[in-house]
């Protein structure tokens, strides 16, 4: 696990919560890592519904390749927490077949990179069957696992599938950022009767976020398809999801020091996409950038920009919208190159400054 910043952030959050006089539950409550929030979500849903089970590589006796399923095999046993061989297309197909028959499988991909082996079952078997059967066969399956770039694992293990799966009707595609997102959205995904692709992030797994008492309660579920305004602001709208939210929030902090207030929208859900929240924000800020870790072409930012272009929101813009995305290259291994392939806070700061200053032409040269 490649998390270096967590102790720092943890300390910061702990200090914040001690020093706060606010009665806000969020600040008063305890930090929980994304990993533990996911674990809690699965545990609670398995407790609640005996049709829910987990299958995937190393989910049981190994306690999860990234420990998301830690302790679940001990608690629920072989029947409901199932180690599979390394055969993604096979076990993804089995998961979808079990969902056809009315069970609620949680199919873990050790990382979403390996879901490419199984993408036929996600797209052709899971996403389309409800429609093809005219509603006769619902497919309540969740495909989950870490998505996107980790650290130092090079091209085949570092890519974002938000745009890939977001492309396909019939799927719901979620990308949580915080612990609250992780828990509330995963529970919603498990309860949902449609196939859900749930894109986590390895680097966020170890990151603690404050969770309110409400979010810690077993009945806490977030609505699918609703974005969250992580930080309100008047000058520019910054739309992001998953790990890119962290980047966007760092940039927003920095920009705030320069007198630029960002409205940071954490999408939470790639499909359906909460465009209303984006449109309302742009109507206020008149500026827009998107931040994502995936490649630019046909990406999440591209979709947002297209929707702006096609709607009256276009007229709200005072400057062209910009995408901040992963560079259009396969992920390199070398540290310095890798750093340049992913959006950093400084990139978001620069992009926001360029869009707000209406200096697009100069910046592009």
């Amino acid at each position, binding site marked *: 696990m490649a998390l270096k910043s967590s102790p720092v952030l943890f300390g910061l959050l702990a200090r914040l919560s001690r020093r706060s006089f606010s009665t806000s539950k969020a600040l008063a409550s305890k930090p929980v890592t994304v990993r533990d929030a996911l674990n809690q979500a699965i545990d609670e849903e398995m407790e609640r519904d005996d049709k829910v*089970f987990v299958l995937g590589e190393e989910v049981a006796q190994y306690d999860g390749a990234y420990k998301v399923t830690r302790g679940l095999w001990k608690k629920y046993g072989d*029947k409901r927490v*199932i180690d*599979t*061989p390394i*055969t993604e*297309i*096979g*076990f*993804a*197909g*089995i*998961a*979808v*077949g*079990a*969902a*056809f*028959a*009315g*069970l609620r*499988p949680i199919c873990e991909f050790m990382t979403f990179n390996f879901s490419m082996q199984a993408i*036929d*079952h996600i797209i*052709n*078997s899971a996403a389309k*069957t*409800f*429609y*093809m*059967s*005219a*509603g*006769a*066969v*619902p497919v*309540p399956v969740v495909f989950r696992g870490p998505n996107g770039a980790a650290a130092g694992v090079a091209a085949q293990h570092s890519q974002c599938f938000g745009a890939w799966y977001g492309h396909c*009707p*019939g799927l*719901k595609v979620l990308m949580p950022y915080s612990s609250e997102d992780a828990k509330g959205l995963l529970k919603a995904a498990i309860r*949902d*009767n*449609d196939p859900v692709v749930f894109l986590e992030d390895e680097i966020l797994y170890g990151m603690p976020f404050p969770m309110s008492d409400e979010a810690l309660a077993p009945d806490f579920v977030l*609505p*699918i*398809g609703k974005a969250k305004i992580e930080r309100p602001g008047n000058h520019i709208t910054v739309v992001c999801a998953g790990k890119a939210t962290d980047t966007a929030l760092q940039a927003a902090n920095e920009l705030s020091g320069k007198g630029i207030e960002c409205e940071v929208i954490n999408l939470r859900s790639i499909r*359906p996409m909460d465009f*209303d929240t984006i449109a309302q924000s742009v109507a206020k800020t008149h500026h827009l950038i998107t931040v994502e870790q995936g490649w630019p072409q046909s990406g999440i930012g591209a979709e947002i920009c297209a929707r702006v272009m*096609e*709607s009256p929101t276009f007229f709200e813009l005072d400057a062209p919208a910009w995408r901040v995305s992963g560079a259009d290259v396969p992920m390199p291994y070398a540290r310095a190159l890798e750093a340049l392939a992913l959006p950093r806070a400084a990139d978001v700061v620069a992009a926001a400054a360029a869009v707000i200053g209406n200096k697009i032409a100069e910046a592009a040269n």
Partner: protein
Amino acid sequence: MSKLIPSAAKLLSGTSITKAAGPVATTSNAKYSTKSESTFEIKPYKLHKLDKGPAQSATLTAEDALKLYEKLATLRRIETASGNLYKEKIIRGFCHLYSGQEAVAVGMRAAMREVDSVITAYRCHGWTHLMGVSLVGVLSELTGRRTGCSRGKGGSMHLYGRNFYGGNGIVGAQVPLGAGLAFAHKYRGDGGVTFALYGDGAANQGQLFEAYNMAKLWDLPCVFVCENNGYGMGTSVDRASASSDYYSRGDYIPGIWVDGMDVIATREATRFAIDYCTSGKGPLVMEMETYRYSGHSMSDPGTSYRTRDEVQEVRQTRDPITSFKEKILSNELVTPDQLKEIDTQVRKEVDEATKVSKSEPEVGVEELAGDIYYSSLEPQIRGVTPAAPLRHVEVVARK
């Protein structure tokens, strides 16, 4: 007559095909036949890692014989109608006919119980009907009309019914899906068995071996049924498979080779398979050797990779309907008149259903965005341009 009752009761209670079949007066026909039951020898099975196989002979009552004959005739007739509808350009796209392979589905279905489930590939018209979908439901799905079992939205490769999960268009994908259905039987403990059917072409797909492996590891009640019709599209088994002993290709999974042209053999083998899987021994592979008369799909004349003589020879010597007919007639289980009566009735029913499948309208355009999601959370579904948004509609009642 007393001997007749138990087997007739089994047939009636064990399947829903009786209900779906329409009003064929088989019960009253028994009096025409001269014998109430007869025993038939079955071409020897080949066994892989099994000490004992299915019964080498089987007893058929006159009731059984008539019922099986009626199903065989119905399936053949459905495909004749489908071929004609395709030639009339009323069926669009792909259309894969099952003619020649009927004994596989009919025999298996006769042995299956209510709790068992089936998944197959795209050669699925006959199976869909056997699993309880009406003739109109099948034929008007092929013509894309609102009375189709998938409301015309699935087409010929995507038919569904109770415990019948398609109708799958991706070669081989139905096999892990079938293992998943079997997983659900085991998880629920409902005693059901899944039959996952695939062709000799799909038998070489990697995902089959992944499914075999997990099914055996977890002892899933899954029967992997390879319908070996000799050709994956235009590639003969010998050109596609390093080993064409498909019944042995589960390696560590026991297997049986079955004469898939003999409906009695397929029924007995399926009975054996159900007993095997329900006794907790895990999966089984069954190879049903059969033949398809038509090309791979309607666009394939089926003559460039095999000879017309070959097809003719199978028709004349191994046809599943003709051979069964000869058997039950020569054993005096049924009379020619009874069979003629069934033929007439089947033809009439299929013709009527065909007429409906041509005259019914397609579903309304509002269903373009119908039932994409069980619960849609999209305020609008995008149409072809931003100016023409669609609204998601819930056509089928949600539970």
